[in-house]
Each structure stands twice: as C-alpha cells, then as structure tokens.
C-alpha cells in the first residue's frame, strides 16, 4: 500500500515576541521551533499514534497538516501531492479528505445548535449540495452508535462519551481518507475512554480510514494504533510499531514515559523510573542530546554531540547514543 501522508523534515516556527521588544531585551533569536525536523508517513487505513507531554509539539503538527500553522521548512505530501504552503482556498477542499477531530468537539461548538446541525455542518461548510441532511444525520449518528433519535438533542443533553461520538460523526461526515484526532479521550473516565477507543478502532476497520491519534496518554495508543512516535521538544525521539516500542523501547525518554504509566497493582513493586527536572524551554534548547538534562543514562558525549537517527529495523528508529538494551 502506498503512503497516504508523507511528512519530511517538517519544521514549524513561531515568533515569541515582537522584533522591537526582542531588540530591547537583547534576545537574538525570538523564534521557537515548535516542530523541528519531523518525518513520518501514514499509509491508507493505518493508525499512527503521536505521543508526548504537553508542549512537545503534537497539536502544532496537526495544525500544520491541515494548513492552520505555517510550514517553515520541509514537505507534506498528501495523496501524492505536495500540500505544504498551499493557499487557504486549496486547503478548504483538502479538509474534506483530511478531517480534524478537536479535543472537545462539542464543547467548542455553539450550545444552541442541535446534534443534527452539528454533524451535518461539514456539508454546509464545504458546500456539498443535493444531500438530504436529515438522512445524513441519521446515517452518521447510527454509524457512531447513537441512533437517529439523538439528532434533536442539544449539547448540554449529552454525556461526555456521547459528545465524543458526535465529534467522531462530524469528522467522518464527508468520508475523509484521514482523520486527525487531537486528544480524543482527554478528560474522560476510563470506562468512557474505552468506549471511544473501541468506536475509533471499529470505524477504522470498517471504513478503512487512516487515523492520526494525538495524545499524552500511552494507554490510548496501546490498543488502537499500528505504529507510534514519541515526541520531545518538537522532535521525534523514537518511532516504530506500537508493540515494539512498548516491549522494546530504546530511547530513555520512552522508557520513562512507559514507567510513568504503571499497571494498577500494589505489588507490581518495580519502582517507577523517575526522571528529574522539567521540560526545558524551546528558547533555550540543551546542547548535544536535548534530553540529557533529564536522562538517567547521560554520558559526556551526550552533552556535546546530538545523536543521529539509528534505524533498528525498517520501521523502528530512535535518536540516542546509548540506547537501552533488549
């Protein structure tokens, strides 16, 4: 199968303060690279998980993919076509094929719209004519397991899980090839989270839609993704098949994240691996390996030389001088 989405060396920069203030304060480089040289691909029907702590650049990637963030460098190919730097008009059409499911899909929309309007809004936004919107609403609501009766409800009449289902229905309205789900289960209880993950997995199998799942929660990627990538300070530190990364992590940061997500068992006994300190500022990236300020295994070379990408296999890669052994 060919790649549906191919991202190469993507860089997204933001100006942090105005040029005048920068000069006054003597800041030489008032820019941050929120995403810095990221490469990955997603094949048709495949699910990729993007995992990292807050501020690591996950949402910035998502917004760059759908043309809401400027691309400073690198290429984004979707369905064989270069789309980085396209104008807003061309992006409008693209967003039918590549749809976004925001973190709180219903809470962020008007409380006065009915569920019917919410799920059929994409038809209006994209000027899709000649469809019976009542029928479309029923079809979509049935597809996500809510049923046509929900069409007349208002957002405040929905439970957390139902609201996410409406968000999924909306994202699937125009039959996209790729759905980008940014924190699809954030703030949900585990039982409801499981419901939403089951739904995403099921739709992916039934409709063959590719999904990019963005999350800070490893439990979310574990069961529904084929491959996953771990982000730190705007870069991928490791990526590979999900099971490989879970069972044979090579990057120390991956290990720390996995350990921070323990099995709920008081006798699991294994002490959690605790990395010290907090994420450094993007304005002041550490020299050498950018993780060295928190890494338990850092050696002298780590502080001087940035590690390159090591290919463990065709699909499993990481950037570390002293990777964990099997």
């Amino acid at each position, binding site marked *: 199968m060919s790649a549906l989405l191919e991202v190469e060396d993507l860089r997204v920069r933001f100006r942090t303060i105005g040029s005048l203030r920068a000069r006054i304060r003597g800041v030489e480089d008032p820019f941050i690279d929120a995403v810095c040289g990221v490469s990955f691909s997603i094949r048709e029907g495949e699910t990729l998980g993007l995992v990292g*702590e*807050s501020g690591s650049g996950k949402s910035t990637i998502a917004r760059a993919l759908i043309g809401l963030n400027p691309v400073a460098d690198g290429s984004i190919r979707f369905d064989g076509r270069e789309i980085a730097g396209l104008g807003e008009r061309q992006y409008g059409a693209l967003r039918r094929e590549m749809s976004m499911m925001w973190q709180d899909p219903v809470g962020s929309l008007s409380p006065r719209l009915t569920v019917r309007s919410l799920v059929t809004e994409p038809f209006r936004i994209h000027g899709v004519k000649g469809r019976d919107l009542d029928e479309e609403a029923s079809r979509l609501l049935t597809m996500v397991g809510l049923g046509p009766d929900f069409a007349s409800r208002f957002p405040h009449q929905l*439970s*957390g899980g139902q609201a996410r289902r409406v968000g999924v229905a909306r994202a699937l309205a125009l039959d996209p090839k790729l759905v980008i789900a940014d924190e699809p289960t954030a703030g949900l*209880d*585990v*039982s*409801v*989270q*499981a*419901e939403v*993950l*089951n739904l995403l*997995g099921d739709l992916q199998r039934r409709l063959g839609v590719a999904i990019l799942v963005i999350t*800070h929660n*490893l*439990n*979310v990627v*574990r*069961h529904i993704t084929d491959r996953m990538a771990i982000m730190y300070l705007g870069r991928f530190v490791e990526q590979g098949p*999900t*099971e490989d990364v879970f069972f044979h992590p090579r990057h120390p940061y991956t290990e*720390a*994240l996995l*350990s*921070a*997500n*323990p*099995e*709920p*068992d*008081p*006798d*699991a006994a294994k002490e*959690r*691996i*605790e*990395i*010290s300190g*907090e*994420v450094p500022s993007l304005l002041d990236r550490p020299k050498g390996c950018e993780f060295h300020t928190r890494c338990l295994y850092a050696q002298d070379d780590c502080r001087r030389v940035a590690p390159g990408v090591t290919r463990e296999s065709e699909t499993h890669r990481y950037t570390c001088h002293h990777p964990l052994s099997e």
Partner: protein
Amino acid sequence: MPQAEPLLTVSDLSLDFGTPRGRLHALRNVHFAVPKGRIVGIVGESGCGKSTLAHSLMRLVPGNADIVAGTIDFEGENILELGERRLRELRGQRISMVFQDPMTALNPVTTIGRQMYEIQYRSKRSSAEKRTAAIEMLERVGIPDAASRLDAYPHHFSGGMRQRLCIAMALLTRPALLVADEPTTALDATLEVQIINMLKDLQSDLGCSVVFVSHHLGTVAELCDDVVVMYAGEVVEKGPVREIFHRPSHPYTQALFECDPGRIKEKTRELPTIPGELPDLRNVPGGCIFKARCPKAFGRCEREHPEPYVAEGEDHVARCFLLDEEEVAA
C-alpha cells in the same frame, strides 16, 4: 494487621445540593475512617462525589450545600458542629488541603515568601525562624534555589512547581491530615511520578495522614494504604489497598478495574466498558445504586438497598448482596 487508631472518622454523612431542578443527593450515608499515619485513597469516576467528600472533611462546602446528617470526628471534635472560629483554627493548622488547580490556593499578587510567613501566623517563632522554616519546606518539596525564590510570585513558576509550592504551604504547619483532591491530574505523567514520590517521602517523614482523591488507579495502587471506592455518592467498597486491587468484591470496582487499559496486557480489539450512565442523583433510584449497570444484578437488588457486607479478608467491606451470607448459602 491491627487497624491503627483513627485520626478522622466520617460516620453516616449525607449531603444535598440545592439546585433549580431539585435537591441533588450528592453524598449518602458515607462512612470511612482515616487511621493515623496512613494514606487513604478515594477513587471513582467523575461525578461520584469525591471532591464533595474531600471538601466536606474541612467543611469547605459551597453555599448551596446542606449537610443533612452525619458526624466527622477529628481528634475528638465533630467538625460539623464546630464554631467558625475553631474551624478556622483547624483549617491550615491541623488539616490542610491541596487542590487540582494550584492557583485555587495561591495568591497571585503576593510573593511566595510572604504567603509562607502568613501561614505561620500562629507560630511564636521569630521571623528569621519562619523564613528558615519556609526555605526548608520549599527544599523538601523540590524547589531549586529555594532561598532565592521567596521573592518570586506564583506566575514565575511552572504548573508542576506551583503544585509543589501548594504542597509546601499545606505541610508547613505540620498538619495531622492532608487532603489532596486530584493534585496530579493536570500534570504530565513524568511530573506526576515526581510529585507522588515526593509526597510519599514527605508523608513518611512527617507521619501525617493523607486523604488522596484520584481517578487514576495506577497512582492509588502505588501510593495508598487503604482505598475507598465511591459510586454515585455512596461508598460501595473499602479496604486495604491489596485487598481492593487483588480481590475487588463489588461489581462496580471489578468493572472499573477491568476497563483500565493499564491493566490489559494483551493488545485487544474490544476494551471492556461500563455500559449505561450514572443515575440521576436528584431522584435516587431504590434498591442497589449500581443495579442498572450491574451484570450480576438479581431480584433482591431491585427491592433492597445493600448494607456494607464483610468481604474476604480483614477490614474489607462492599455494599453488595452477593457477599451476604444468605445469598452465599442459597
């Protein structure tokens, strides 16, 4: 193991909220104890009453709350009957609280140092001693360069550091009880590990008791000695942490554990869920509170409300008829 002497005992506590659509019965006949020097976890899904319970331990409840029954015995006094003055003395001195959002407790326009001296207003120490105590506590919670940060304001700190500040302030007066309502929920996982480990160390050094509210089972398993499981305003199960995690006896606890993805080792297509929704607490249904979602419900669950029955193992009870001798015998 013999139960340690209780520091705090909540008996038969019931609390209603007045709402435009009627009284919401948020806590019903809650009973549990916090032994001296132990960490008690309160778990359950959102809306089940964890925060309401945690806040009522300090009688810190909103204006529309009405405590309709019960007692909260703390060091020989009933918190629910104390005068405002005595209550203020206890708060922040004998019982302190840490919230999910650190800014709830921090004053944004006052320096950290000043806030920490003010907390010690009752102490007879000199101001130099108070300053030393503040610095020492900031160091213990892991604030680097503590002495030089006393003049900083809360907004100078990251989210994780602010939560450390709150913990430092809460423990500065050496309270007997620390109540923490989801203190790590808003933090990243690697910071959560740091804070949990720090709390564990501090608690064993200071010997205080802790009530730790969380919906994260992994954290509770790691940190707590005892666990209280809540569902829809009731304590449905409680016991020592190993009992609860190894032998969950209430069908709700069992279901909650089953759908925690951290527990599922094999990659599965279908994760377990808990179908159905929380009952409407304005109109509390009769019978067992979990019956509408319980896969094991039977006739009696419709008609009667289960009392806490003793489960296998010591100090372990669950409100489920399946543990009743009569049912077991039948």
